[in-house]
């Protein structure tokens, strides 16, 4: 196995007196889907927001392609090729698909927005992801279905030659068909060589698309394993108690 695309070591993060992440280690390989699982409040979203530069980490190492980096803002993360599709969708309802995909990184010619180029690139990106469900890229995002919005959010993330795409519960609000669609898209990203992190509570989804599973338990990384090496039941156990047989955290006290 080559150098991981993303490697985190000993990440700590507190909100005031509450320590949400404790000595977290996490690696992500290119060309793979890594599922990040854990109970509600385990700290998955917080970990992702730390990776994305929304929250500063208190301490720990953050490496991209083996190189130590420091990420202080969403811009820093984007510069490193890290793109995040947030649980609480970060789209502007009052803008159209193209405008959302290029938000904050608009193409310009001189002072003027280069709308034709942006529209063309957006269409091409959607086409390259075999997205056929949106009528027009000039549609307002408010008029899209949940699955379509998720698709736009994902397309936005891959527009930027990103190396790592992180999806926080992309299928949580979707129906069966739309979930399948989004999962297929997720798999396609990894097959295109991107590193993908997928957060999900749905074990079927996790086992359907992931190559590796990382389980967070109460802010600590319980285990990171190959999907083919574990069963549903073991993963559920890791999520609910932090341990499963030989896998997972050691007994209380020895862990820290």
């Amino acid at each position, binding site marked *: 196995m080559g150098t991981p695309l993303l490697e985190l070591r000993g990440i700590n993060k507190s909100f005031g007196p509450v320590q949400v992440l404790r000595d977290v280690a996490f690696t992500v390989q290119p060309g793979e889907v890594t599922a990040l699982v854990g109970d509600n409040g385990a700290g998955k979203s917080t970990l992702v927001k730390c990776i994305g530069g929304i929250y500063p980490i208190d301490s720990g190492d953050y490496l991209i392609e083996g190189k130590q980096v420091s990420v202080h803002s969403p811009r820093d993360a984007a510069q490193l090729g890290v793109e995040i599709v947030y649980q609480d969708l970060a789209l502007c309802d009052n803008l159209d698909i193209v405008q959302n995909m290029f*938000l904050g990184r608009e193409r310009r010619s001189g002072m003027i927005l280069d709308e034709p180029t942006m529209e063309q690139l957006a269409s091409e990106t959607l086409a390259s992801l075999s997205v056929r*469900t949106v009528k027009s890229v000039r549609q307002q995002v408010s008029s899209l279905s949940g*699955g379509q919005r998720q698709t736009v959010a994902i397309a936005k993330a891959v527009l930027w030659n990103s190396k790592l795409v992180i999806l926080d519960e992309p299928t949580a609000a979707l129906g069966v068909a739309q979930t399948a669609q989004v999962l297929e898209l997720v798999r396609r990203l990894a097959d295109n060589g991107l590193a993908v992190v997928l957060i999900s509570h749905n074990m079927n989804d996790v086992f359907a698309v992931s190559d590796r599973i990382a389980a967070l338990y109460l802010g600590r990384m319980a285990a990171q394993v190959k999907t083919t090496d574990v069963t549903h039941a073991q993963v559920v156990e890791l999520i609910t108690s932090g341990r499963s047989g030989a896998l997972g955290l050691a007994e209380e006290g020895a862990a820290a």
Partner: protein
Amino acid sequence: MSAVTKEPATAVAPQAARDEGILGYLRGYGQKVRGGDMGALPAVLGLLVLCVVFGLARPVFLTAPNFANLLTQAGPVVVIAMGLVFVLLLGEIDLSAGYTSGVCAAVLAIMLTTHGYPWYVGVAAALATGLVIGLLLGFLVAKVGIPSFVVTLAAFLGFQGTVLWLLDEGTNISVRDSVIISLENEYLSPAVGWGLAAVTVLGFAAVQLIQQRNRRRRGLKADLWQVVAFRVIGLAVLVGFAVAILNQERSRNPLFSLKGVPIIVPVVGVLLLLWTFVLRRTAYGRHIYAVGGNKEAARRAGIAVDRIRISAFVICSSMAAVGGVLLASQARSVDPNTGGSNVLLYAVAAAVIGGTSLFGGKGRVLDAVLGGLVITMIINGMGLVGWSSAYKYIATGVVLLLAASVDAFSRRRAAASS
């Protein structure tokens, strides 16, 4: 994964999704309106209805002299409303914009009349005052985190006092500078009026054609040529009609000629162009909409949200300063009431009637112009009909509520149809 990859209702390839022809275009427009995106429709309908109602009640309403009056009367409200659009786009409000224009007008009058500076120094001082006020309001809202409603309500009181203080507890300073006075009281020669009309229409047509050609060249969906032609011809007819009326002789005194397009019209036109360009064609404008639509999404996209918010207040207060200059020009003087009483209410109403949402994220600078015309027609028409102030206040309040209801209604429609 054995996935069902199609949503039957929307599974259409991007290229195949074009609604062909004029009918398709009209159907699309109908859908938009029913979905709550009514654009300029309510304001345009309002203008037509008002013309009919007041025209029937008082035929003088529809005469050339009254039309010219209406335009000069609308000037200050329209300009202040243009600035308010920026603040409203963020979902904020500036209740102090009226008295900001008063303060700036007082600064102008003091510079011109008390100190005898030339007009451009006075205007620069007024604009600088507006800019500083905007910075202060924006800082308090964006950095200190006080709701804009409270900040600008406090400023509303504070600036009312400031005007009094600047005018030594209520003296009236007259403004005699000919350049300032001309803004609201002079007219273009008929030839210049026609020239400007031609430049406007040809410029608009050129921009439209270049845009459509660029899109076609890139293989993107362009508007139907019929639609483009309709827009250009529509503008030409509108502008031509207006100039033809305004170039009629309005003076009853044979020794004295009064005709031409009021100077305020090209002034408002230039401001409209400038701010429309900023909002629709620059990244800054895009970011204003983004912050108004979803502040957190904007932040995550790397947009400096605080800076955008402060800048919107700066634009609003600076435009209020321009409005103050126009108020001073209109009254040929500045007194403690300049920018007071109804000015703010009219300006907010203008923006909202034009279609700018009070909830943020939706609005255009053109809304300020259309809504400002509606509001001014109501005021002007009620004056001609001879209604008392009591009824005028009540009617204006009702109109503002109506506009806000249309806004709330279209928002609900938009939410329901998504």
